[in-house]
């Protein structure tokens, strides 16, 4: 069967789907795997800028679907990693330009080319979402520890169950350990109690994420980035490794990081 199709979705907008897709793609490619990411948010393309590849777009997803470009032609190579590619969304079309069947066909072709196909889903539960989920072997649901994001994530879990796409795996993004500690933010355990699906990642709030998208260089490329580390952990879990969830306790992790740096240096 070849490559595996992973769809990143959330229901609610702005929780970090595109950031997650870009970082997981980078983290998986850094392990030597061949990765292509596919921006399924037609009309609101963004994965290209987050990855810093916006100036190299010639063809897009709709060009492939409508036969104006071959698959290989539309795959933009990210030169920073050996085998990382992007297929951008079309910016001047809408979701209806592509059907779930088109997505399945396209991903099946990509399976022969790469190890991982990461699909960045648009927000919402309409056509764009259905397009993104149709080819998925595994779905990653991104949420924030916040009522509206968790409620929308629950809706996605229900829709995935109805489509027999499994419950999906959860990534809790933008967690602030100090707010959890003082009882002003839902904890990882709270969110898991509510959604009752398997957890695959907890990503702490990190200002570095904004800096990295300013620069077009996903945080997972930066060894020192905390969020980047969390995404690299998710990538390892996706590859079947049993990676423990680190304590997000601020002080502890500061010393742990310090210790880790000394160990690396020596």
């Amino acid at each position, binding site marked *: 069967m070849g490559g595996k199709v992973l769809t990143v979705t959330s229901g609610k907008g702005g929780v970090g789907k595109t950031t997650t897709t870009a970082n997981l793609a980078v983290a998986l490619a850094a392990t030597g795997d061949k990765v292509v990411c596919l921006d399924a948010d037609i009309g609101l393309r963004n994965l290209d800028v987050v990855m810093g590849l916006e100036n190299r777009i010639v063809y897009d997803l709709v060009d492939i679907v409508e036969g104006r470009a071959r698959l290989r032609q539309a795959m933009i190579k990210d030169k920073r990693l050996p085998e990382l590619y992007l297929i951008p969304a079309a910016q001047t079309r809408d979701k209806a330009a592509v059907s779930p069947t088109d997505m399945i066909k396209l991903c099946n072709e990509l399976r022969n080319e790469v190890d991982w196909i990461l699909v960045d889903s648009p927000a919402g539960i309409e056509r764009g979402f259905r397009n993104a989920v149709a080819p998925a072997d595994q779905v990653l649901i991104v949420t924030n520890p916040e009522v509206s994001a968790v*409620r929308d994530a629950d809706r996605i879990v229900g829709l995935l169950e109805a489509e027999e796409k499994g419950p999906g795996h959860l990534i809790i993004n933008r967690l602030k350990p100090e707010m959890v500690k003082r009882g*002003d933010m839902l*904890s990882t355990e709270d969110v898991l109690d*509510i959604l009752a699906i398997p957890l695959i990642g907890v990503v702490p709030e990190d200002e570095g994420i904004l800096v990295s998208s300013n620069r077009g260089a996903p945080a997972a490329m930066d060894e020192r980035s905390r969020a980047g580390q969390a995404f690299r952990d998710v990538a390892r879990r996706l590859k079947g490794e049993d990676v423990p969830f680190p304590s997000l306790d601020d002080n502890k992790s500061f010393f742990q990081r310090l210790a880790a740096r000394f160990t690396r240096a020596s």
Partner: protein
Amino acid sequence: MGNWLNRLLGRDNQSSAQSAKERLQLVLIHDRTDLSPALVETLKDEIIAVISKHVEIDPGGVEINLSQTQRENRLVANIPLLAAPGGRRRPRK
């Protein structure tokens, strides 16, 4: 700090995260089942009516709740039956 002060002054006895969790749990039961609180009330009235046709029940003691375990939702009805006139209250040992 503010939270600690609030708690000391008894302004709120639960953290905002706890309220978030409880509110979410409630709203999700309704989202998942597509049963509004009003519909649950209607169900309750109709269930009482149907059962009352055949057996005597205590309408005031009827409880109809939605409960959630992991990803399963169920409607749980607790309906106290009244003893039939002249009937035994409890089976003999």
